[in-house]
C-alpha cells in the first residue's frame, strides 16, 4: 500500500491535481453527484490547514491568540498505485493524520500496517 502526504496552495488546486492524476472521478447518477475513488485509490483525506503554532484559548475554549498555520492545504492519499506528485509530495516526520492500523508517520510506497502499543 502507498501513502502520500500532499500539499497544495488551495483546495481547488489539490482537488484538480488529484482528479487529473486519476485518483478519483466525479460521477453523476440519478441526479446525485459524488466523488468516486478510481485506479486503486483507497482513501483521499482532506486535512485542510495544519497548525504550526497552536492558538491559545480560555477555559471555555474562546480564542485568546489565533493559531498560525503552515501555508497551503494538505491531503493524505492511500492507494495501491505509485504516482508522481512532484513538488506537491511532502515527507513529514511528525504527521497530524494517519490511517487506522498504520503507524502515525507511515508514508511512502509499500507501507505495511504497523504499530499499536497497548499496555
Amino acid at each position, binding site marked *: 500500500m502507498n501513502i502520500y502526504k500532499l500539499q497544495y496552495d488551495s483546495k481547488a488546486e489539490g482537488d484538480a491535481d488529484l482528479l487529473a492524476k486519476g485518483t478519483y472521478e466525479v460521477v453523476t447518477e440519478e441526479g446525485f453527484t459524488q466523488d468516486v475513488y478510481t485506479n486503486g485509490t483507497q482513501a483521499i483525506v482532506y486535512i485542510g490547514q495544519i497548525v504550526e503554532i497552536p492558538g491559545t484559548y480560555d477555559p471555555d475554549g*474562546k480564542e485568546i491568540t489565533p493559531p498560525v498555520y503552515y501555508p497551503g492545504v494538505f491531503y*493524505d492519499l492511500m492507494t495501491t498505485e505509485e504516482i508522481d506528485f512532484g513538488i506537491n509530495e511532502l515527507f513529514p516526520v511528525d504527521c497530524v*493524520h*494517519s490511517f*487506522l492500523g498504520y503507524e*502515525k508517520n507511515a508514508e511512502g510506497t509499500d507501507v505495511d*500496517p504497523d*504499530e*499499536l502499543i497497548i499496555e
Partner: protein
Amino acid sequence: MSLLDDVSIVVTPNGYKAGELYAVVPVPSEGAELVTDGDFNSSSNWFEGSGCTISGNQGIFTSAPSGSGFTGNNVNAGIFTIGKRYTVVFTIDSISLGALKIRKPFNSSTTYTAAGTYTETVIATDVDIYIQNSGTTTASISYVSVKEYTAADMDVTRATAATRVDEAGLVNYAEIIGSEEVTNGDFATDTDWTKTVGWTISGGSANCVSGTGTTISQANKLIIGRQYKMTVTLTNYSFGYIGSFGNDFGGVVAEANGTYEVIGTATQTTFGFVAQGSFTGSIDNVSVKEVTRDNVPRIDYTGGGCPHILAEPQRTNLVTYSEDFSNAYWFSSTASIVSGQSSPSAANPTGAFEIIPSTSSGVHKINTLSGSAIPIGGTYTLTIYAKANGYKNLLIWGDSLNAGIGYNLEDDTVFRNASTLSHSIESFTDGWKRISVTLDSTASASNFSAYIYDNSPTPAISFVGDGTSGIDIFGASIEQGSYATSYIPTSGSTVTRNQDQFTRDGIGSLINSTEGTLFAEIKSFISQDLVDPNRYITLTNGTSNERVALLLGGNNNQLRAIIFSSSQSINLSFTINSTDTKQFNKLAIKYKSGDYAFFLNGTKIDSSSETNIFATNTLNNLSLDVGGGTQPFRGMVKQLQVYKTALTDAQLTSLTS
C-alpha cells in the same frame, strides 16, 4: 418444501477471513474439467503458435517470439462463458528464457519466469484458452486445467483496520488471530529458548539479572512483513527494561510489572526479548500470534442478539487523543482525572478515565484545549463512552456553538438539549453508554466539552463535588457527518478508517437473469442521509445499466426497489416512506416477465405487469453498491438471499415476515 431449497445465494454474518465474507450458500465448488488434452498428449485440440510445438506430453516454446503460445483449438475452442469465474492451473516444467502468462480466458497481469504449478481464479473475459509467452521464450509446460469455480463469498475491501462491538459487547478490532507461534511460552521447561548471558529459565519463568543487550529468543518463528500480536507478563521487576526483536515494536516493551500487548510487523524471522539498562526481572506467558486487521469484514453485535454486517463510509476521528484524557490535548476545570478505570474496550480494558468533580464550588468539566477541535463550517457528530460512577448526568457540549446534549447515564433521559441536529444514547456492557450528538458548526468552530452535572432532580451545572464520585469516560470522537460510526481510536494524530466495500462478481451461474428474487434484511444508520442518499444492494452486470436493486432511499425513512435495464427498456421503481429505516426491515423484490413485485415486512407494497425482462446471462454480480462501485450501501445487513425463481406472493409474504 422449504424456501431455502430454492435459494442460490445466502450471505449472513457468518464466517469470514481477511478480504472475504463467506456465503452460507453455495458451498464453494469446482465444475468439470473444461480443457481437453490438458496434458499435451495430442496436438489435435491445440493451435501451436510460432516457435511452439507439442511433443513428448509437453508444450514446448523454442525461442518463441513474444506473443506466441498455445491456443485452444477444435473442442478446446469457445469453452468458457464470459463473466463466469474459473480456476486455471498450469505447470511450467522448465523455463530458461522469457516468461509465460495466462492470456485467455482472462488477460492476467501475472507473468511466470520459473518452473512450478500456478493457480489463478478470476472472471473470464474471453471464451478461449490461451497460454501466451512474453518476450522471446524457451520453456516447456505439461499441464493446463480450467474449471468453473462456483462460490458467492463476497470480496471485502477497506485497507485499514476498523472496530466493531464483539460478542461480549466490547469495542474491539475486527481481526483474524493466527495460531501460537511461540513454543514453551510459559517456560514450563528449560527448552526451546536460546539464551545469552544473564538469562535463565526456572520456576516457570525466564529470569534475567543485570542484563544489558542480552537476549532470549526462538528462531524461525516469524514471517517478515506480517503483523503479529505479542503478549508478555513481567514480574519481579526491579531495574531496566526489556524490548523485543524480530519486529518493529522497537524501544521499550515493558519496564514495570504487568501484562503487555504489542502489535507490530516482523522484520526478521527470529523472535525474542533483549534486556536493556541492567534489566532485572522475570517474564512469563509469552505469546506471539499473527494478526490481520485490514479488510476484515465486521460482524457487529451492537444492540445484542443476532449480529449484522457493518458497512460504513470513510470517516476521520478529529480528536487526536481519543483515549488519553491526561494528555495536554485535554484540559480539565475543577475536576481531577484518574486513569486506569475499566473500559468498554477489549483492546484497552483499563483505558478509561474517571472525571471527579472537586470539592470546590463551580463547574466541573473536561474539554479539548483547542477551540477549533470542531472545525468551522459543517455538520459534526461528537461521541464519547461514559458510565455513571457516583455522578450520572453528563453534558456533551460545544462551548462556542452553545449546543449539545445532556444525558442521565442511568435512565437514558435527556436533561438538557440545545441546538442539536440529532442525538442518541446506546447501551454497552457493564453500564457503559455511548452518547452521540450531531451539531452544526456553520457559524463557529468550537471545542469539545464534557460537563458533569449534579444528581439533583433538576441537574445543576455548578455544585460542590464530594471529591470521590465521578463519571468514567472513554473513546472520544469528532466525525464530520450527520451520524456516528464505529469508534476510531487515536493516539497523537487524527485517524481515518476507510470505507467498507463488498462485491462478488462472476456468479452468473447463481443468478437467473430472466426470473428471480432478491431479499435483504437491513437497517440504516440514519433516517435520511443527505450525503449518501441512495444506498444500494444489487444484482447487476457489473454496471448500473442492468440492475435489480433494494435500497435505502434519499427521502426520510425511504425504502425502495428498482429494476432497471437500459438494454431491455425496463425502468420500475417501488417506494415506501412509512417504515422506520433505523430498525431492521425485510425487503424483497421479484422479477419475471409480467410478474414484478416489492415486499416489505410481510406486505406486498407494489407490483407491475411489465413484460420486458433481462436477457439471459445478463446478471452476474452481487454488490453492496449500485453496480460498479458507486452509491455504496451504508448500514447494517443481517442477511442477503438470491433465488433463481420469482417466488410466489405467499412465499414472499412468509419470507419477509
